[in-house]
């Protein structure tokens, strides 16, 4: 299946993603920030679909938007943030921080532009990506080449789970 109107959807989705990103870091209310982040995540899922990565897009939706963000919203509702809304939102070094971040971004773009691979990036040298069996291929990678990494990741999740329970529980 060939994606249609690629240019339009790319600009739409990346615009939404960036808009969401800006809202995340500027909103006073944490719930609004979280909702903006969800917008970004969904837009990114759309971009993944356009990049022939349907499985990653699905995981993005089900895990990020459906799981992690619900956790965020849950915690925001649990801790009462009304007081923090009235306080100063940005710390004292916000000018330096912003400048440093922007400089990093410019550096990145410069690296892309100056690199010898740029013609490659622009010319769209496309690898043979099996679109119809994307999930199957990823599965083969996950349970083949990256078996050990996969196990480590599951261990990491276990550790994180125990850690979260230990820290969030009132009394153990």
């Amino acid at each position, binding site marked *: 299946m060939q994606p249609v109107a690629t240019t339009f959807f790319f600009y739409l989705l990346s615009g939404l993603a960036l808009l969401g990103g800006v809202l995340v870091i500027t909103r006073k209310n944490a719930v609004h920030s979280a909702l903006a982040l969800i917008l970004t995540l969904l837009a990114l899922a759309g971009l993944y679909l356009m990049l022939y990565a349907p499985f990653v897009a699905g995981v993005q939706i089900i895990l990020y938007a459906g799981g992690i963000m619900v956790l965020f919203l849950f915690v925001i509702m*649990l*801790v*009462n943030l009304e007081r923090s809304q009235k306080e100063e939102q940005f710390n004292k070094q916000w000018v330096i921080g912003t400048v440093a971040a922007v400089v990093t971004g410019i550096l990145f773009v410069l690296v892309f532009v100056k690199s010898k691979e740029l013609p490659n990036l622009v010319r769209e040298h496309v690898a043979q990506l099996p679109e119809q069996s994307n999930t199957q291929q990823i599965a083969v990678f996950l349970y083949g080449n990256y078996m050990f990494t996969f196990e480590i990741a599951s261990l990491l999740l276990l550790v994180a789970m125990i850690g979260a329970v230990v820290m969030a529980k*009132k009394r153990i």
Partner: protein
Amino acid sequence: MKPTTYISRLELGEKDETFLDSNELIINMGPQHPATHGVLRVILKLDGEKVLGTECVIGYLHRGVEKIAENRTYAMFNPYVDRMDYVAAVSNGLGYCEAVEKLLNVEAPPRANYIRVILAELNRIASHQLWLGTHALDIGAITPLFYTFRDREEILKIFEKYCGARLTTHAFRIGGCQYETYEGFEKDVKKFLNFFKPKIDEYEELLTTNRIWVERTKSVGVISGKECRALGVTGPVLRASGVRWDIRKAQPYAAYSDFQFEIPTGQNGDTYDRYLVRMAEMRQSVRIIEQAVAGIPEGPIMAKIPKVLKPPVGEIYHSIEAPKGELGYFVVSDGSTQPYRLRVRPPSFVNLQALDMMVRGQLVADVIAVIGTLDIVLGEVDR
């Protein structure tokens, strides 16, 4: 004048430092709420879903029944008592009539007493049916409500045929009954009993072994017999806690001494036991009515009492076993045609006091179950 807002003592209380403060919610359940059976307002202090404390705010249905009594003659006040526990109006009337009869030192004739027993027990069944339907509805089973209302209709039809009213019946008069039983009364009652006996099994089939029902009611709202006695809780709530106390047996009134019946009791004092006790009580009521219909004597239905009631100076306390518990009337007479003071001991009001003890530390959903199982009627709580 500035309207004053009610501040609950729960809001004034010290904050518990061990909890996240945001976890503590004060929520108002009622006075407009689907599960508070009228206009009860319960202020709940919650930690997440757990109940830390409750406070009942009552009085939204207060009509000053006791004060009204002081300005009415004894006979005129009789219909007012029906408006207290409006789902068990017959029992209310029975208690009042007997109290005044005691004060006057007259006794209702045996036939009147039998009619009284039949109607009062029918009313007990009706009241329990209403309780079952609404209780199940609160816990989330919506179907039993319609079944019980279908069957309760038959009782109300008998009431209507007997005295012309379905709910606030005003069935009895001081000194006996005003109406002789209508043609075919016994037949109607017998027909109802035969119709109703399998229906109890139907209700039980829906609920008694239903796993969700059992899980929702077992060890919910536990109260021990000792605590019941300390609070003055009576009726099925007390009996479910294992205390064998039923005024029909302990101090028989009307014609109850003539009948064979048992007092169903529970052991655990939880919501499930209260459910079982009330179901058993319905069966016992059927038994009593059967005996009463079979042995109803002939004779007058009204004792000889003066046209104008002027009880001698004195005071009397008389209580009966209403469907919800001990319903008592304390009447003080100064020798005039009107009571000097009349005080009602409403079972719902007293039983409601147990709510806080029963739900503390349990979940919000249990508050609903416990309010249902206490079987309160706000008309009686507020009077």
